[in-house]
Protein backbone atom coordinates (compact mmCIF):
# COMPACT_ATOMS: atom_id res chain seq x y z
CA UNK A 1 0.00 0.00 0.00
CA UNK A 2 2.81 2.38 0.95
CA UNK A 3 4.61 1.50 -2.31
CA UNK A 4 1.56 2.54 -4.30
CA UNK A 5 1.41 5.81 -2.32
CA UNK A 6 5.11 6.50 -2.99
CA UNK A 7 4.66 5.78 -6.69
CA UNK A 8 1.69 8.13 -6.83
CA UNK A 9 3.73 10.87 -5.11
CA UNK A 10 6.65 10.44 -7.52
CA UNK A 11 4.27 10.53 -10.47
CA UNK A 12 2.62 13.72 -9.20
CA UNK A 13 6.02 15.36 -8.61
CA UNK A 14 7.34 14.44 -12.06
CA UNK A 15 4.15 15.75 -13.69
CA UNK A 16 4.44 19.07 -11.87
CA UNK A 17 8.11 19.36 -12.94
CA UNK A 18 7.09 18.65 -16.54
CA UNK A 19 4.35 21.30 -16.37
CA UNK A 20 6.81 23.88 -14.98
CA UNK A 21 9.42 23.16 -17.67
CA UNK A 22 6.78 23.43 -20.42
CA UNK A 23 5.64 26.78 -18.94
CA UNK A 24 9.25 28.01 -18.77
CA UNK A 25 9.83 26.98 -22.37
CA UNK A 26 6.71 28.84 -23.47
CA UNK A 27 8.08 32.03 -21.74
CA UNK A 28 11.20 31.92 -23.95
CA UNK A 29 10.91 34.64 -26.60
CA UNK A 30 10.62 33.44 -30.17
CA UNK A 31 11.90 35.23 -33.28
CA UNK A 32 9.07 36.94 -35.16
CA UNK A 33 9.19 39.56 -37.92
CA UNK A 34 8.32 42.33 -35.43
CA UNK A 35 11.17 41.50 -33.03
CA UNK A 36 13.85 40.74 -35.63
CA UNK A 37 16.30 43.38 -36.81
CA UNK A 38 18.92 43.55 -39.52
CA UNK A 39 22.34 44.90 -38.59
CA UNK A 40 24.41 46.40 -41.42
CA UNK A 41 27.11 49.02 -41.80
CA UNK A 42 25.46 52.27 -42.85
CA UNK A 43 28.50 52.88 -45.06
CA UNK A 44 31.73 50.92 -45.54
CA UNK A 45 34.68 51.86 -43.32
CA UNK A 46 37.59 53.12 -45.45
CA UNK A 47 40.66 51.06 -44.53
CA UNK A 48 44.11 52.51 -43.88
CA UNK A 49 46.60 53.05 -46.70
CA UNK A 50 49.40 50.50 -47.07
CA UNK A 51 52.72 51.07 -48.85
CA UNK A 52 52.23 47.98 -51.02
CA UNK A 53 48.48 47.48 -50.91
CA UNK A 54 47.90 43.74 -50.50
CA UNK A 55 44.75 41.90 -51.53
CA UNK A 56 42.89 40.21 -48.70
CA UNK A 57 40.52 37.28 -48.71
CA UNK A 58 38.32 36.31 -45.77
CA UNK A 59 38.43 32.54 -45.56
CA UNK A 60 36.29 31.93 -42.47
CA UNK A 61 34.44 33.72 -39.72
CA UNK A 62 34.12 31.36 -36.77
CA UNK A 63 31.88 31.93 -33.76
CA UNK A 64 33.85 31.51 -30.53
CA UNK A 65 31.42 33.32 -28.25
CA UNK A 66 30.12 30.15 -26.65
CA UNK A 67 26.65 31.67 -26.81
CA UNK A 68 24.01 28.96 -27.41
CA UNK A 69 21.68 31.55 -28.97
CA UNK A 70 23.94 33.92 -30.93
CA UNK A 71 21.02 35.47 -32.78
CA UNK A 72 19.18 36.48 -29.61
CA UNK A 73 20.29 39.99 -28.66
CA UNK A 74 17.81 40.77 -25.90
CA UNK A 75 15.81 38.39 -23.75
CA UNK A 76 13.55 40.83 -21.92
CA UNK A 77 10.70 42.85 -23.45
CA UNK A 78 9.55 40.00 -25.70
CA UNK A 79 13.08 39.38 -26.97
CA UNK A 80 15.03 40.77 -29.87
CA UNK A 81 16.73 38.74 -32.61
CA UNK A 82 19.14 39.25 -35.46
CA UNK A 83 18.03 38.30 -38.96
CA UNK A 84 21.35 36.56 -39.68
CA UNK A 85 24.13 34.85 -37.79
CA UNK A 86 26.65 37.35 -36.28
CA UNK A 87 29.40 35.64 -38.28
CA UNK A 88 27.60 36.55 -41.54
CA UNK A 89 27.14 40.15 -40.37
CA UNK A 90 30.85 40.54 -39.49
CA UNK A 91 31.95 38.92 -42.76
CA UNK A 92 29.74 41.27 -44.77
CA UNK A 93 31.05 44.34 -42.89
CA UNK A 94 34.70 43.39 -43.43
CA UNK A 95 34.23 42.43 -47.09
CA UNK A 96 32.32 45.62 -47.94
CA UNK A 97 34.95 47.77 -46.23
CA UNK A 98 37.89 46.00 -47.87
CA UNK A 99 36.13 46.30 -51.21
CA UNK A 100 35.65 50.05 -50.73
CA UNK A 101 39.42 50.42 -50.35
CA UNK A 102 40.15 48.05 -53.31
CA UNK A 103 41.82 45.63 -50.91
CA UNK A 104 39.51 42.65 -51.47
CA UNK A 105 40.79 39.92 -53.77
CA UNK A 106 38.43 38.56 -56.42
CA UNK A 107 39.04 34.97 -55.27
CA UNK A 108 41.10 33.04 -52.76
CA UNK A 109 43.85 32.05 -55.20
CA UNK A 110 44.61 35.66 -56.12
CA UNK A 111 44.81 36.88 -52.50
CA UNK A 112 48.12 38.00 -51.00
CA UNK A 113 46.86 37.56 -47.45
CA UNK A 114 44.11 35.40 -46.01
CA UNK A 115 42.08 36.38 -42.95
CA UNK A 116 40.41 33.97 -40.56
CA UNK A 117 38.20 35.70 -38.02
CA UNK A 118 37.32 34.33 -34.58
CA UNK A 119 34.31 36.16 -33.20
CA UNK A 120 34.33 36.36 -29.39
CA UNK A 121 31.44 38.72 -28.74
CA UNK A 122 28.64 40.20 -30.79
CA UNK A 123 25.70 41.93 -29.14
CA UNK A 124 24.90 43.59 -25.87
CA UNK A 125 27.20 43.27 -22.89
CA UNK A 126 26.36 43.91 -19.26
CA UNK A 127 26.06 47.67 -18.77
CA UNK A 128 25.09 49.97 -15.95
CA UNK A 129 21.40 49.22 -16.33
CA UNK A 130 20.54 52.75 -17.42
CA UNK A 131 21.81 52.31 -20.97
CA UNK A 132 22.66 49.70 -23.62
CA UNK A 133 26.29 48.65 -23.96
CA UNK A 134 27.00 47.20 -27.39
CA UNK A 135 30.20 45.29 -27.91
CA UNK A 136 31.80 43.48 -30.86
CA UNK A 137 35.08 41.72 -30.25
CA UNK A 138 37.04 39.50 -32.58
CA UNK A 139 40.51 38.29 -33.30
CA UNK A 140 41.77 37.77 -36.84
CA UNK A 141 44.58 35.50 -37.95
CA UNK A 142 46.21 37.02 -41.02
CA UNK A 143 48.09 34.43 -43.06
CA UNK A 144 50.43 34.65 -45.99
CA UNK A 145 49.41 31.59 -48.06
CA UNK A 146 52.79 31.50 -49.85
CA UNK A 147 54.98 31.32 -46.76
CA UNK A 148 52.43 29.97 -44.26
CA UNK A 149 53.39 32.71 -41.79
CA UNK A 150 50.64 34.12 -39.60
CA UNK A 151 50.04 37.15 -37.38
CA UNK A 152 47.21 37.86 -34.97
CA UNK A 153 45.22 41.08 -35.01
CA UNK A 154 42.66 41.90 -32.32
CA UNK A 155 39.78 44.32 -32.71
CA UNK A 156 37.10 45.65 -30.39
CA UNK A 157 34.18 47.94 -30.99
CA UNK A 158 31.98 49.47 -28.33
CA UNK A 159 28.98 51.71 -28.27
CA UNK A 160 26.68 53.18 -25.64
CA UNK A 161 23.04 53.87 -26.43
CA UNK A 162 20.29 55.40 -24.35
CA UNK A 163 17.80 53.17 -22.61
CA UNK A 164 14.16 53.53 -23.63
CA UNK A 165 10.77 52.84 -22.13
CA UNK A 166 8.76 51.97 -25.23
CA UNK A 167 9.41 48.63 -26.89
CA UNK A 168 9.69 50.27 -30.32
CA UNK A 169 12.34 52.67 -29.07
CA UNK A 170 14.23 49.88 -27.28
CA UNK A 171 14.43 48.02 -30.58
CA UNK A 172 15.59 51.14 -32.44
CA UNK A 173 18.23 52.03 -29.85
CA UNK A 174 19.60 48.48 -29.64
CA UNK A 175 19.80 48.22 -33.43
CA UNK A 176 21.70 51.54 -33.65
CA UNK A 177 23.93 50.45 -30.80
CA UNK A 178 24.85 47.20 -32.54
CA UNK A 179 25.48 48.95 -35.83
CA UNK A 180 27.73 51.50 -34.15
CA UNK A 181 29.72 48.84 -32.30
CA UNK A 182 30.08 46.81 -35.52
CA UNK A 183 31.34 49.91 -37.33
CA UNK A 184 33.73 50.64 -34.48
CA UNK A 185 35.15 47.10 -34.48
CA UNK A 186 35.56 47.07 -38.27
CA UNK A 187 37.33 50.40 -38.07
CA UNK A 188 39.50 49.25 -35.19
CA UNK A 189 40.59 46.27 -37.28
CA UNK A 190 41.09 47.98 -40.65
CA UNK A 191 42.78 51.12 -39.30
CA UNK A 192 44.66 49.46 -36.47
CA UNK A 193 48.37 49.60 -35.89
CA UNK A 194 48.30 45.81 -35.40
CA UNK A 195 47.08 45.20 -38.98
CA UNK A 196 49.72 47.55 -40.35
CA UNK A 197 52.44 45.67 -38.46
CA UNK A 198 51.04 42.30 -39.51
CA UNK A 199 50.96 43.31 -43.18
CA UNK A 200 54.51 44.68 -42.92
CA UNK A 201 55.75 41.49 -41.26
CA UNK A 202 54.02 39.11 -43.67
CA UNK A 203 55.02 41.13 -46.73
CA UNK A 204 58.67 40.96 -45.62
CA UNK A 205 58.31 37.19 -45.35
CA UNK A 206 56.80 37.02 -48.83
CA UNK A 207 59.64 39.13 -50.28
CA UNK A 208 62.24 36.87 -48.65
CA UNK A 209 60.42 33.78 -49.93
CA UNK A 210 60.24 35.13 -53.49
CA UNK A 211 63.98 36.01 -53.37
CA UNK A 212 64.88 32.53 -52.11
CA UNK A 213 62.67 30.94 -54.79
CA UNK A 214 64.37 33.02 -57.49
CA UNK A 215 67.84 31.79 -56.47
CA UNK A 216 68.94 28.65 -58.38
Amino acid sequence: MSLTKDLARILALSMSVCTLSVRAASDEPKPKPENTVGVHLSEPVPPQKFDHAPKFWITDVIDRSGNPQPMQVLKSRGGMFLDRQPTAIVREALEESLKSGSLLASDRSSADLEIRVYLFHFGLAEGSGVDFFGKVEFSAVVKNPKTGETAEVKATGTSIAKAAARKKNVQKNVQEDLEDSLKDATRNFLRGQQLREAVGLLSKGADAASVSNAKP
Partner: protein
Amino acid sequence: MRSRIVLTIVLFLGLAGGSAARDSAPVFKTAEAKHFSGVEGVELTPAFYDYFYAELRSELTKSKLVSEVIGEGEAVEDADADKSVVITGTVTEYKKGSVVKSALIGFGTGMRSLKVDADVMRRSDKQNLCTIHVHVKVEPNWNEKIMARFAAQQIAKDMKKEFGTKR
Protein backbone atom coordinates in the same frame (compact mmCIF):
# COMPACT_ATOMS: atom_id res chain seq x y z
CA MET B 1 13.21 103.00 -26.65
CA ARG B 2 11.70 99.97 -28.40
CA SER B 3 14.38 100.05 -31.08
CA ARG B 4 17.06 100.05 -28.35
CA ILE B 5 15.55 96.96 -26.76
CA VAL B 6 15.42 95.20 -30.13
CA LEU B 7 19.03 96.21 -30.79
CA THR B 8 20.12 94.85 -27.38
CA ILE B 9 18.33 91.54 -28.02
CA VAL B 10 19.96 91.23 -31.45
CA LEU B 11 23.35 92.01 -29.91
CA PHE B 12 22.87 89.34 -27.21
CA LEU B 13 21.73 86.79 -29.77
CA GLY B 14 24.75 87.56 -31.92
CA LEU B 15 27.10 87.14 -28.97
CA ALA B 16 25.41 83.90 -27.93
CA GLY B 17 25.64 82.58 -31.49
CA GLY B 18 29.31 83.52 -31.63
CA SER B 19 30.13 81.78 -28.37
CA ALA B 20 28.16 78.69 -29.45
CA ALA B 21 30.14 78.58 -32.67
CA ARG B 22 33.38 78.88 -30.69
CA ASP B 23 32.27 76.06 -28.36
CA SER B 24 31.52 73.72 -31.24
CA ALA B 25 35.02 74.04 -32.76
CA PRO B 26 36.99 70.95 -31.61
CA VAL B 27 40.41 71.46 -29.99
CA PHE B 28 41.93 68.13 -31.05
CA LYS B 29 41.83 66.18 -34.28
CA THR B 30 41.70 62.77 -32.67
CA ALA B 31 41.56 61.33 -29.16
CA GLU B 32 42.42 57.76 -28.30
CA ALA B 33 41.18 56.40 -24.99
CA LYS B 34 43.12 53.41 -23.72
CA HIS B 35 41.73 50.76 -21.38
CA PHE B 36 42.51 51.91 -17.85
CA SER B 37 44.31 49.61 -15.46
CA GLY B 38 43.92 49.08 -11.73
CA VAL B 39 46.63 49.26 -9.11
CA GLU B 40 47.27 46.27 -6.90
CA GLY B 41 44.45 45.72 -4.46
CA VAL B 42 41.72 47.17 -6.68
CA GLU B 43 39.15 44.42 -7.14
CA LEU B 44 37.25 45.34 -10.28
CA THR B 45 36.25 42.96 -13.07
CA PRO B 46 37.61 43.27 -16.64
CA ALA B 47 34.00 43.99 -17.67
CA PHE B 48 34.15 47.17 -15.58
CA TYR B 49 37.22 48.44 -17.48
CA ASP B 50 35.55 47.55 -20.80
CA TYR B 51 32.48 49.52 -19.85
CA PHE B 52 34.53 52.44 -18.55
CA TYR B 53 36.46 52.53 -21.85
CA ALA B 54 33.18 52.63 -23.80
CA GLU B 55 31.70 55.31 -21.54
CA LEU B 56 34.82 57.49 -21.77
CA ARG B 57 34.74 57.32 -25.55
CA SER B 58 31.04 58.12 -25.57
CA GLU B 59 31.52 61.13 -23.26
CA LEU B 60 34.48 62.42 -25.31
CA THR B 61 32.33 62.28 -28.43
CA LYS B 62 29.54 64.15 -26.65
CA SER B 63 31.94 66.83 -25.35
CA LYS B 64 32.79 67.90 -28.94
CA LEU B 65 36.32 68.58 -27.78
CA VAL B 66 37.71 66.30 -30.50
CA SER B 67 36.81 65.81 -34.14
CA GLU B 68 37.14 62.04 -33.96
CA VAL B 69 37.36 59.60 -31.06
CA ILE B 70 39.36 56.65 -32.32
CA GLY B 71 39.60 53.12 -30.95
CA GLU B 72 42.51 51.69 -29.02
CA GLY B 73 45.55 51.00 -31.21
CA GLU B 74 44.26 52.78 -34.32
CA ALA B 75 46.77 54.46 -36.60
CA VAL B 76 46.76 58.26 -36.95
CA GLU B 77 48.08 60.27 -39.89
CA ASP B 78 51.46 61.85 -39.11
CA ALA B 79 50.07 65.26 -39.98
CA ASP B 80 47.36 64.91 -37.32
CA ALA B 81 49.60 63.50 -34.56
CA ASP B 82 50.48 66.97 -33.28
CA LYS B 83 46.81 67.77 -32.67
CA SER B 84 45.91 64.36 -31.28
CA VAL B 85 45.81 63.11 -27.71
CA VAL B 86 45.98 59.77 -25.97
CA ILE B 87 44.18 59.27 -22.65
CA THR B 88 45.62 56.70 -20.29
CA GLY B 89 44.81 56.14 -16.66
CA THR B 90 44.70 54.06 -13.54
CA VAL B 91 42.06 53.21 -10.98
CA THR B 92 43.94 54.00 -7.79
CA GLU B 93 41.27 53.10 -5.24
CA TYR B 94 37.98 51.25 -5.11
CA LYS B 95 35.91 50.79 -1.97
CA LYS B 96 32.85 48.57 -2.12
CA GLY B 97 31.10 50.49 0.63
CA SER B 98 28.75 49.19 3.30
CA VAL B 99 24.97 49.18 3.14
CA VAL B 100 24.72 48.77 6.93
CA LYS B 101 27.00 51.74 7.67
CA SER B 102 25.22 53.83 5.06
CA ALA B 103 21.81 53.01 6.57
CA LEU B 104 22.77 53.33 10.24
CA ILE B 105 25.18 56.29 10.18
CA GLY B 106 24.47 58.07 6.92
CA PHE B 107 26.10 61.45 6.10
CA GLY B 108 28.18 59.85 3.36
CA THR B 109 29.47 56.99 5.48
CA GLY B 110 29.64 53.58 3.81
CA MET B 111 29.44 55.02 0.30
CA ARG B 112 30.92 53.06 -2.60
CA SER B 113 33.88 55.06 -3.91
CA LEU B 114 36.22 55.10 -6.88
CA LYS B 115 39.38 57.14 -7.46
CA VAL B 116 40.79 57.45 -10.96
CA ASP B 117 43.86 59.27 -12.28
CA ALA B 118 43.85 60.06 -15.99
CA ASP B 119 46.71 61.46 -18.08
CA VAL B 120 46.13 63.32 -21.31
CA MET B 121 49.20 63.06 -23.56
CA ARG B 122 49.98 64.61 -26.90
CA ARG B 123 50.39 61.82 -29.44
CA SER B 124 53.34 63.24 -31.37
CA ASP B 125 55.85 63.80 -28.55
CA LYS B 126 54.10 61.99 -25.65
CA GLN B 127 54.09 65.20 -23.62
CA ASN B 128 51.70 65.14 -20.69
CA LEU B 129 49.20 67.93 -21.24
CA CYS B 130 47.26 67.46 -18.03
CA THR B 131 46.50 65.02 -15.24
CA ILE B 132 42.95 64.61 -14.04
CA HIS B 133 42.04 63.22 -10.62
CA VAL B 134 38.49 61.97 -10.25
CA HIS B 135 36.76 60.80 -7.08
CA VAL B 136 33.27 59.34 -7.45
CA LYS B 137 30.99 58.28 -4.61
CA VAL B 138 27.68 56.46 -5.01
CA GLU B 139 25.22 54.58 -2.82
CA PRO B 140 26.65 51.17 -1.79
CA ASN B 141 23.79 49.24 -3.39
CA TRP B 142 24.26 50.87 -6.80
CA ASN B 143 25.88 49.04 -9.71
CA GLU B 144 29.64 49.67 -9.91
CA LYS B 145 29.24 50.56 -13.59
CA ILE B 146 27.25 53.64 -12.60
CA MET B 147 30.52 54.85 -11.05
CA ALA B 148 32.29 54.23 -14.36
CA ARG B 149 29.69 56.39 -16.06
CA PHE B 150 30.10 59.24 -13.55
CA ALA B 151 33.91 59.02 -13.67
CA ALA B 152 33.90 59.16 -17.48
CA GLN B 153 31.57 62.16 -17.41
CA GLN B 154 33.85 63.90 -14.89
CA ILE B 155 36.99 63.26 -16.98
CA ALA B 156 35.31 64.67 -20.12
CA LYS B 157 34.07 67.68 -18.11
CA ASP B 158 37.53 68.37 -16.63
CA MET B 159 39.12 68.05 -20.06
CA LYS B 160 36.62 70.53 -21.43
CA LYS B 161 37.42 72.89 -18.56
CA GLU B 162 41.18 72.51 -19.11
CA PHE B 163 41.32 72.70 -22.90
CA GLY B 164 38.09 74.54 -23.65
CA THR B 165 39.64 77.79 -22.37
CA LYS B 166 42.66 77.32 -24.65
CA ARG B 167 40.57 77.31 -27.82
